[in-house]
């Protein structure tokens, strides 16, 4: 072995990288060659001395000072995030207001020729909102909302969204019939819109049929329809959400169709097998982690470890619970199909029945009275919207630009 070769090997030898050269040859060379031996000894001395240098202790207040700095810089981040979100929210308001303003204009242009009641529009909208919440997907509604009621559409949508979110809770209620086998997981959702001569009769028939077949009515609502122009009562309309065993889905759809004049009907099929299996495996992983953490907790030696482990364990348990709830919800929607029925009280020939008895009128729920109120003060409200929208648009633009400038300044 030559000297320069040996000198190159010294570092690897000291660093215990013994596979890159012939160790025996190297050691032989070191023994015979004095200059290489000196170099070796010198480097060995230097590295071992460096290796033995002691760590300085941390300055006393290092940790507390650093923690303060970190918390401060964390808050700053949150602030800038809030600025971002509020700018986003402002933009959303801007878009919404612009939309409302346009609709307002549109209404003014078309208000003379409104044949359908404005209420129908919000009922339809409400139905859409409901079916969204029921299937968890976004099924395309097969019927168009009546455009003539445009000025009230925004109102109806907002309302139905609130309604949808309050009804979301059904999905987290567990069903006992949980199938363990992984067959295809398919969610069926149906939509039917019918005109009937008696709303009460039709809805009672649907309820009875469903219950006789082992299903249940998940949710229902009804409205009193008024003609927006003449303010005369036109009859009832409403929605019923039926949950029925998937095997009886088609039969039930067929039965409901026979109860009146079919206006619209559609079905959607959604295969969630992948999401289902995915959630199952996530759950397994979390359960394994839970076991591991429990073991760690039993063997923990100091308080800070215990606190950390317990904190993590709490999170894992809550993850497990949410995955289980998710699976139960999947099982629920797979085992029980959803049928959304929209019923409107109307004679077959389209003539509105003259049911003006007080009892029928008294059926108003909160939404109806709000809507009635709305239609009663329609003129005033529309006037307010008309004046308000342009002002709001200007105000929002001002707010957005101020926020924007501020956040830019913050960055600098």
């Amino acid at each position, binding site marked *: 072995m030559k000297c320069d070769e040996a000198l*190159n090997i*010294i*570092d*690897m030898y000291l*660093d215990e*990288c013994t596979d890159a050269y012939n160790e025996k040859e190297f050691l032989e060379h070191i023994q015979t060659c004095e200059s290489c031996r000196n*170099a070796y000894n*010198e*480097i060995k*001395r*230097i*590295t071992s*001395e*460096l*290796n*033995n*240098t*002691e*760590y*300085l*202790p*941390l*300055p006393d207040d*290092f*940790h507390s*000072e*650093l*923690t303060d*700095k*970190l*918390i*401060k*810089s*964390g*808050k700053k*981040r*949150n602030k800038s*995030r809030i600025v971002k979100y509020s700018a986003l929210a402002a933009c959303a308001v801007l878009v919404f207001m612009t939309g409302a303003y346009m609709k307002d204009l549109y209404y003014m242009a078309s208000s003379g020729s409104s044949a359908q009641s404005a209420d129908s529009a919000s009922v339809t909208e409400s139905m859409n909102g409901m079916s969204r919440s029921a299937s968890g997907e976004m099924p395309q509604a097969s019927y168009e909302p009546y455009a003539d009621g445009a000025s009230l559409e925004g109102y109806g949508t907002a309302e139905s969204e609130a309604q949808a979110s309050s009804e979301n809770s059904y999905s987290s209620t567990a069903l006992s019939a949980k199938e363990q086998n992984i067959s295809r997981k398919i969610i069926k959702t149906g939509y039917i819109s019918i005109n009937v001569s008696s709303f009460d009769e039709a809805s009672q028939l649907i309820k009875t049929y469903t219950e006789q077949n082992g299903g249940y009515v998940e949710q229902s609502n009804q409205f009193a329809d008024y003609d927006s122009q003449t303010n005369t009562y036109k009859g009832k309309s409403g929605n019923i959400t039926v949950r029925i065993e998937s095997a009886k889905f088609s039969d039930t759809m067929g039965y409901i169709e026979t109860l009146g004049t079919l206006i619209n009907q559609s079905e959607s099929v959604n295969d969630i097998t992948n999401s289902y299996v995915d959630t199952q495996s996530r759950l397994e992983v979390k359960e394994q*982690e839970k076991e*591991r*953490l429990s073991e*760690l907790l039993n063997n923990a030696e100091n308080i800070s*470890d215990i606190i*950390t*482990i317990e*904190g*993590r364990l709490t*999170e894992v348990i809550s993850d497990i619970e949410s995955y289980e709830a998710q699976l139960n919800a999947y099982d629920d929607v797979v085992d029980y199909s959803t049928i959304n029925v929209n019923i409107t009280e109307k004679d077959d020939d389209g003539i509105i029945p003259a049911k003006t008895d007080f009892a029928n009128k008294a059926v108003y729920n909160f939404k109806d009275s709000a809507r009635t109120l709305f239609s009663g003060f329609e003129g005033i409200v529309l006037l307010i919207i008309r004046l308000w929208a342009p002002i709001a648009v200007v105000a929002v633009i001002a707010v957005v630009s101020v926020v924007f400038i501020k956040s830019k300044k913050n960055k600098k």
Partner: protein
Amino acid sequence: MISSVNSGLIKKARRGDGRAFSMLIENHERFVFNVVYRITGNAEDARDVSQEAFIKAFKNFESYDERAAFSTWLYRIAVNTAIDFVRRRKKENSISFEDYIVDENNQNSDSGIEEKVISKEGVKSIISAVNMLDDEFKTVIVLRDMEGMDYKEISDITGLPLGTVKSRLSRARGKLRQIIEKNDIKSETEGRSRA
């Protein structure tokens, strides 16, 4: 890989929770402080620079990939921050460079000093000799010979290929040896840095 026990803290820290991040790094503070100290060669600077590194890490925590070792990620930021600092300082001091005199005590000996400006008193400790190395050499010496990291870890932290780490370390040791021989540093004279 951070132990699974810590992943709750990681989540919080990612959301911008400074206290959670502070808990996450607590066990690394002394190590990072000392690595930075060895690169900057000055305890006061090491305090500021290591805290700067931790804050940088916190602000960029989103870029941390949990499959990689947390310590490696953290030390990489610390080493880079320290090297940046030393370079900055060298630029600022370049005018008065010729007049630079190494502190007798060596405690405060500045880094980035080139051999040509070594004071007449000479270099009295191996630490001060290390401080005379160029940044690129000093870094590998600090990480390998002072922190005891293996080639792979050094490669991960510095981003240098393994082969470069090996050759740079070899050259760094050679230079260190030259500095020490030139200044006749004896290991027996080192009180402060002996174990």
